[in-house]
Each structure stands twice: as structure tokens, then as C-alpha cells.
């Protein structure tokens, strides 16, 4: 029997759930095709197929989906809507499935729907996938449980690594906290150049999205009372958790990101004692512009640190 090929676009929530998804499909005996790192071509295709005003991250997502068409049997585009404690996602995630199925004609999508408010949870979603792919109930359940376990382990591992680093960090370098959605931060075109340039400027980077999600849950309350976006909450948890260890904060968001337009503004207004830099990326970015801003930001941080150390 030939293995089914499942294509996973390397964009959006891939960066959060990749361990879960990859393990699940591998356990089911499927072959996984992951789209390439974002490149100029993917971005261009994404822009061609998207509405102008869509957020840059979603344009990149569309580009990734396009690059997978014809290379696999199914493209995996899950739908995210609401989580357990009535948290919701940005409405962009509600519609990615329907957008892709409408703009591309010959596309086979496999999906699961995460909408706790309407009684659609993760397990039932994955079991439905198993049924659709013709795999047995027990096999699917086992695969899901294993994937979930691995996903949690990975999350804890990452978080531990970062906390350990912070504890043992005795260098004189700047500590810069980067607050950004994982799909922006770890994207080859969006976040990676910024990360590598900050490292080049001789600073330690701490990531707000890497945080122990099981134990740190209420940090966001320090900044906001009415927040209901799950992803933003997690970022603010990280922000609160690492705030005391860092010299400055860099917020990175993409143009027309809905939640960020409000949440970042609120954070920068509430954080009074640490310098904040708010970078907004769009498709017309110049690297030089960003680099200049990063340089002057680190200069400010360095000066501030010197004053603190030597008076």
C-alpha cells in the first residue's frame, strides 16, 4: 500500500503545533510533506492569491498552501476558533480553511475543527481525521495520545531550557525579550533576519512565546483585564514571566494583525520601566530600515545599562 502524503504548510500555527501534527500523522503511517521555509517566491504567490488588506502572516500561509498543491494527497489546514476557558483565536484562523478551499480549485484539504464553545474538541477532531483517512479508531486514538504527550514534553523542554539559561546567565550582554507570535518570529523572511541581527549586535535573546504553558497561566492579568485571545494571552504570560530579567523588549508584529494592533499598544503604554521597540513588518520592508532601528535600540539599552552599572 502506498502511504498517503499529507502536506503541512510551514506557516501560522505550524510553529506552535508542529510536534503534535507531525507525530500524529507519522504514527498513522502517513508520509509528511512540509513546505519549504518561506522564501520570496512563496511570499509573492501568497500576495497574488490574497486580498490586499490581509495580514502578512496569512498571505505567507496562502503562499505555502499554493506551494504544496500537487505535491501531496491532502493539505492539512485545521480550523481554530475557541479553547476551553472561552478563549478565542483571531478570526483569521476561523476562516483559513474556507478561504483556501475557495481560492484554489483543485485542492484536497484535510482539517479538524477546534471550537470548544460549540463542542468541537481536539480529540474528536483528530478522530475524525483518522476516519477520513481510513485508519482504525484505536490506531488514531493511540497516535493522538502519543502526539499529545510528545507535544507537551517538547513545550516543557523548551521552557526549561530558557529558564535554565536565564538562571545561569552571568554574561555582561544585553538581554532582549522578543514578544511576537511564533509564526512571525520563526519565519525565515519575517523574524529570522531580526533575530540574527540582534544576535550580531551582541545580545541574548529571550522569547516570550517559549514559556511553560501548563503552570504559567495568569501572567497576562498584570497587563490586561479583558483579554480573550489565546495566543496573545500566552505571549503576555511569557512577557510577564521574563520581564524582570531583561533590559528591553522588542515587539514584532505584522501589518494589519488584529489582536496585536490593540494588545501591543496596551502593553507599551503599561510598561513604564523598560524600553520597548515596536516593529511592524509588511511586504515592502527594507532590511536596512529595521537594522537601523535595532541598532539605535540596542544603543539605548547599552547606555542605560552602563549608567546602572557605573553610575
Amino acid at each position, binding site marked *: 500500500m502506498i502511504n498517503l502524503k499529507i502536506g503541512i504548510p510551514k506557516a501560522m500555527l505550524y510553529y506552535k503545533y508542529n510536534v503534535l501534527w507531525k507525530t500524529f500523522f507519522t504514527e498513522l503511517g502517513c508520509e509528511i510533506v512540509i513546505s519549504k521555509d518561506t522564501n520570496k517566491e512563496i511570499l509573492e504567490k501568497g500576495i497574488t492569491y*490574497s*486580498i490586499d*488588506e*490581509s*495580514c502578512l502572516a496569512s498571505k505567507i500561509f496562502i503562499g505555502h498552501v499554493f506551494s504544496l498543491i500537487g505535491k501531496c494527497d491532502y493539505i492539512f489546514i485545521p*480550523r481554530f*476558533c475557541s479553547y476551553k476557558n*472561552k478563549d*478565542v483565536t*483571531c*478570526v*483569521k484562523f*476561523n*476562516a483559513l*480553511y*474556507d*478561504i483556501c*478551499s*475557495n*481560492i484554489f480549485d483543485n485542492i484536497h484539504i484535510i482539517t479538524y*475543527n477546534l471550537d470548544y464553545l460549540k463542542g468541537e474538541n481536539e480529540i474528536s477532531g483528530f478522530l475524525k481525521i483518522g476516519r477520513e483517512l481510513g485508519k482504525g479508531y484505536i490506531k488514531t486514538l493511540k497516535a493522538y495520545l502519543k502526539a499529545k504527550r510528545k507535544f507537551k514534553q517538547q513545550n516543557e523542554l523548551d521552557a526549561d531550557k530558557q529558564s535554565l539559561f536565564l538562571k545561569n546567565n552571568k554574561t555582561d550582554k544585553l538581554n532582549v525579550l522578543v514578544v511576537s507570535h511564533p509564526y512571525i518570529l520563526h519565519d525565515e523572511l519575517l523574524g529570522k533576519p531580526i533575530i540574527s541581527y540582534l544576535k550580531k549586535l551582541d545580545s541574548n535573546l529571550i522569547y516570550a512565546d517559549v514559556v511553560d504553558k501548563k503552570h504559567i497561566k495568569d501572567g497576562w492579568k498584570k497587563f*490586561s*483585564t*479583558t*483579554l*480573550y485571545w489565546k495566543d496573545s494571552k500566552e505571549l503576555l504570560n511569557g512577557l510577564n514571566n521574563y520581564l524582570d530579567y531583561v533590559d528591553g523588549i522588542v515587539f514584532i508584529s505584522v*501589518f*494589519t*494583525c*488584529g*489582536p496585536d*494592533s*490593540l*494588545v*501591543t*499598544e*496596551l502593553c507599551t*503604554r*503599561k510598561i513604564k520601566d523598560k524600553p520597548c521597540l515596536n516593529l*511592524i513588518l509588511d511586504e515592502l520592508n527594507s532590511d536596512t530600515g529595521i537594522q537601523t532601528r535595532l541598532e539605535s535600540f540596542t544603543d539605548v539599552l547599552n547606555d542605560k545599562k552602563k549608567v546602572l552599572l557605573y553610575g
Partner: protein
Amino acid sequence: MVNKLEILENNKDIKKAKVSFPHLGNYYIPIYSLLLRTLDNVDILIPPRMTKKTMEIGEKYSPDFVCTPFKYNLGNFIESLDRGANVLIQAGGGCRFGYYAELQEQILYDLGYNFTFITLFDAKGVDIFKVYKKFKIINPKLKFISFSYNFLLTIKMVNVLDKLENKIRSIISFEVNKGEIDKIHNNLLKELKLIKNFKELKKINRKYGDILNDIELDRSKSKLKVGIVGELYTAMEPFSSFFLEKELSKMNIEVKRYTTATYLLFEKGKEEKKLIENANKYIKYALGADGTESVAHSKELCESGYDGIIHIKPFGCTPEINAIPILQKISKDYKVPIIYFTFDMQTSETGIKTRLEAFYDMLKMKKEAQNA
């Protein structure tokens, strides 16, 4: 938040409180009347009419790419505060709207204003008891029975207003004596503002229903029918769409619009499942906020013989951007033209008008070709 409210509660000079709220179309009338009937111990300030100035002030203090209604609301608040308001009421709801309140409060505090901010609903929906509690902060003597009576009266008032305005929308392009309906509309708003009980409301409803039924119409004048779909604020606040509906009526186009407060508050929730089912050829899931409605209603409009559809949204409205690719497909499948308008601070009114005229010409030519 709690501290601020306590201050207000303990404040002996509560009579000096001046309550204000943001604009949304003509709904300031039911809101004003509700506040008037339930908060008899305070002054109520209807924010000044929206102008270009409101937009500019709002934009100046808002984050760059937040959706446009945020900026309008903030502009309203600042103009009200400058006129002495010290209690601000914001509604709250789904998508980004539920989060407006917190940031707007922060921005206004940072600007140095002194006020109390009250959010009526949270993301979980309308709960009359919670709203009552919020009102009680301003008027401690308020009884629940009297509040719920007035609340229901206001809801009924919104229903009546929506019903009559829907009627006006459907006939205004046929009126023989230009300006007649506008005059009636203005009188209606004036009378509605002073209503005190259900009986008076019923009387007004019947009176204006009759008046509107008796208006001289010339049905031969217009042959084009257009539906408006899209985001709720732009649909309901004429200023934010450069009075699009008025322009259409000048062109003698009959307009159908689904989005009204009545629809959003009472029908939308019930209808969602049905809408997705109707449009299941295009969508499998809800698109968030009003996106699903835009798609399902567009399909409905196409099927019921409308000549064109106008899709409106403020800049950066994610749910409507979600809907656009699907609308494009519907437009292609049914061969019904759809025009997309995005409104923000930089949108030029002339640009919109030119595009609208071109759209009108196209619809007209298409219709003539079909008839020939």
C-alpha cells in the same frame, strides 16, 4: 477599575455626573432615551455630530492599524470629554470590538482626562442583570423592575426604528416629491426621542407606518436593486461610509440591507447555522463576526434577482477580508457584480463616488443588455 467605581459611588456630588457614549447611526436615540429614563440623577450628553474633526482626533491618538470604528469611537469620547462628560459608556462585543474598551480607557487616561469608564457587555454576550448592575453604579436608587421595563422598552424602540428605517430604505428612491421622506424621517427621530412608555411607542409606530404607506411613489423611476453587505459599524453609521445609502437613493437605486441592531442582537445568533447550511457550497465553518452573514446574504441576494452587491468594511476588518475571496467566487458563479469599498481615514470621498458611479453605469448597461 473597582477603585474608580468606588470613588464615583462615594461621591456625594453624583448629580454632576455627565454620561456620554459613542455614536452609531441613529441608535443614539434609543440609547439616549434609555439613559434618560433610568438615570434621572445625571446629565446625559449626546456626543456632537460626527465630522471630519472627530475622525482626525480619533486617529491621532489611536494605534496605527487598528480597525476604523475604534478611531471613530475614540473621537466621540474625546469630543464628549471636552464638553464636560465624566462617565463614558462603551458597549463591547465580538471580534476586536470587545477589546476596544480597555485600550480606549487607557489612552484617555494617558491623555489626562478624569472620568469613569463603563463597559456594558463582555465577550460572552448580553446579560440584562449585568447591565443593570453597571447602571446601578451610576444611579444607586435604580430598581431592577423599573430598569428591566425601560430596557425592554428600549429594545422595542430599536425594533420599531429598524422596521421603519428599513421601510424608508426600500422606498426612498421612488419618492415623487424629493426630500419628503427625509423630513418624515427627521420628525420620527424627534418624536421617538421623547417616548416614555409602550403605548406611545405603539402610537408612533402606527402613525409613521401609515404615513410611509401613504407616500406618493413612482415605481417606474428605478429599475435597479442593490444589496449592501459587510461590517456592522460601516453599515449602520452613515458618516463612516460617506452616506453611501443616500448616494444610492439619489441614483434611484433600491437598497436592501440586512444589518440592523435588531438583526445583530436577536436574529443573528439563531440564524448562523441556517446561514452556513444555505451557503454550504462555499463555506463549511463560520468566518467570524459578520463574515458568515456577508457570504450567506450575498448568495441570497444573487438568488433573489438583485442587480449588484456592495460590500463595505472599515480598513483592516479581518472577518470581512476573510469573506472577500468567497464573495469573489459567488460573484463569478452567479454573474452578479460585487463592488468592494474599504473606508478609513485616508479614503477620499470623491474616489468612492467615482467608483460608485462607474458601478451604477455598469449595472444599468448590463440590465439594458439583458432586457434588449
